[in-house]
């Protein structure tokens, strides 16, 4: 088990290292000079080359790439994530300010995905082939196919424009008003969790169906268990073990969705920060956003792997 954990941890670190180089490459090597872009945008017109070089030196952009990379990594680890070109704020401070808001959204979205996804998937598998299975399966595919922004538009139109029961945008901090907070995140979390719910429902269904087709289920029936007992005692555990993986995938969907949703609903979280940074070519913020997203996803995947290894005896006992 120890070995399994260490191996997973090493893999994650290795991947993170590759990702960091990738992000570094995206920001530095690819065509398009961020400094030029920024300077052009802020000065509106021709700029003195010296000014550009000055900014380059200021950001360490005149160093060889490997040195730049190492400096960047060192700075990042020590909490120096650079300064936003657009606002002049420290990126680390911007991040810390927005993290709680985004975190609340994430957790609520994933919770609601699971709350809907698990029961639907289980019912679908148990009622395999019935009308209810078809209905739920179709619902799951629909959930997966709904574009986040369109779902947002529909819900805003329904609940804000027509019914006036939910705010169309804005965020009320939890500390200001609990009710206001919940109302303000109701639509965003619902939307961010929709795809995940569909994904979980599908995954749970196929996983459970597969388990229900295995020989040991027949053994359980042969002992005298009823359908519901077989489901509870023999089928659910092996079926839900791999589902942890899908919780990780859901987290990925939620992460991607947050960029659009926070932008649409004007929620001052990390997603909105990222989108705004892209609009203004604010590359220190873009870079930081990418690496945060990567760490976020890798950490969740690591957790998923670890709990999977912990729960599944076939992996647990191997060492």
């Amino acid at each position: 088990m120890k070995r399994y954990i260490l191996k997973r941890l090493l893999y994650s670190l290795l991947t993170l290292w590759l990702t960091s180089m990738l992000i570094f490459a995206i920001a530095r090597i690819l065509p398009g000079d961020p400094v030029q872009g920024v300077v052009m945008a802020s000065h509106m017109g021709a700029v003195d080359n010296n000014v550009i070089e000055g900014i380059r030196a200021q950001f360490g952009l005149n160093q060889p790439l490997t040195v730049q990379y190492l400096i960047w990594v060192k700075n990042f680890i020590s909490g120096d994530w650079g300064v936003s070109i657009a606002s002049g704020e420290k990126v680390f401070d911007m991040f810390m300010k927005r993290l709680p808001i985004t975190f609340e959204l994430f957790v609520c979205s994933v919770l609601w995905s699971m709350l809907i996804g698990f029961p639907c998937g289980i019912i679908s598998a148990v009622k395999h082939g019935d009308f209810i299975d078809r209905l739920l399966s179709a619902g799951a595919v629909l959930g997966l196919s709904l574009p986040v922004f369109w779902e947002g538009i529909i819900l805003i139109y329904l609940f804000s424009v027509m019914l006036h029961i939910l705010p169309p945008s804005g965020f009320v901090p939890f500390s200001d008003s609990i009710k206001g907070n919940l109302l303000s995140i109701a639509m965003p979390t619902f939307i961010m969790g929709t795809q995940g719910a569909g994904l979980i429902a599908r995954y749970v269904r196929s996983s459970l169906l597969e388990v229900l087709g295995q020989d040991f289920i027949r053994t359980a029936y042969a002992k005298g268990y009823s359908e519901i007992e077989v489901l509870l005692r023999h089928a659910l555990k092996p079926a839900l073990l791999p589902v942890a993986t899908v919780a990780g995938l859901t987290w990925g969907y939620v992460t991607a969705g947050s960029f659009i949703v926070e932008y649409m609903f004007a929620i001052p979280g990390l997603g909105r920060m990222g989108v705004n940074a892209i609009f203004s070519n604010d590359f220190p913020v873009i870079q930081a956003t990418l690496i945060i997203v990567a760490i976020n996803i890798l950490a969740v995947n690591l957790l998923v792997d670890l709990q999977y290894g912990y729960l599944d005896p076939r992996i647990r006992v191997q060492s």
Partner: protein
Amino acid sequence: MTMQPLLQVKAISKEFPVYQGQVFKKKTYVTQAVKSVSFDIFKGETFGLVGESGCGKTTVCRAILQLTPLTSGAVFYKGNCLSGMAKKELRKVRRHMQIVYQDPFASLNPRTKVRDIIGEPLVIHKLTQNRSEYKDRVEAMMTMVSLNPAISGRYPHEFSGGQRQRISIARALTVNPDFLVLDEPVSSLDVSIQAQIINLLEEIREKFSLTYLFIAHDLAVVHHISKRVAVMYAGEIVEIADRQNLYGNPSHPYTKALLAALPIPDPQASYKDENAMLQGGNGVMEHHAGCKFYVRCPARRHLCQVKKPVLKKVNQHDHMMACHLGES
């Protein structure tokens, strides 16, 4: 004057390393899938190799065909050493050595038509000049194994297990090989089909004067088809003799036990050697210096645990066995 064997297997061993350690893996010990196995196969004979699952018989056959690298030892075909042979040379030799696998479901590519399965060796070795020659050859092969050439456009899943095994045999024969490795060719077939395939194999061996290495776990089948038989246990050959001697006068306790455990389709059959019945596992994971069969052996003594028995002659016929039994 002794005849030059067609195939010589000389002290081949195959180890699989077992790794342990938390961050830096260390090779702690190795499992020996095959340990110092030697035998010769002469032209025109059927050499039987018997053993239970996991005893290494399939590794032996993969090693002979150079499908897995050896840890030590060498395989000679017509006097030429195959181990370490250049790829190009090996390809030429492979034409003469073909294999028929156990599982007729997994050994045929499900997306390939039967005619292209049977003709694939011709394509690989570029043996036919044109399409019609290719077609003729494939159809001749199908007729030989009693398959209707009219159905050569079908896919494997449209055939039964026995028919698929016929396809496998036809595929092996297309390039006119001298030597066939038969890796449990009948053990997944029904009894009535099994007999059909055994008869087919015997017919084509006579017709083309082929040489067989016949691997199986069913002692009765091996008895029926082989001239000489070797018994494997936990990666080693424990007894090797011609058929009459091995079955008429089994010497190694494991061979005896196998024969005793064999169910005979005759209610009046007497199972005289009830106490030869075995207990316990297959010996692969035993790590003492002595005989691998020690723990399960009904005739074990102290010597067996400390000293490894070697294969040696037990009588004037070429009957060999690896056991301390009979030693003082």
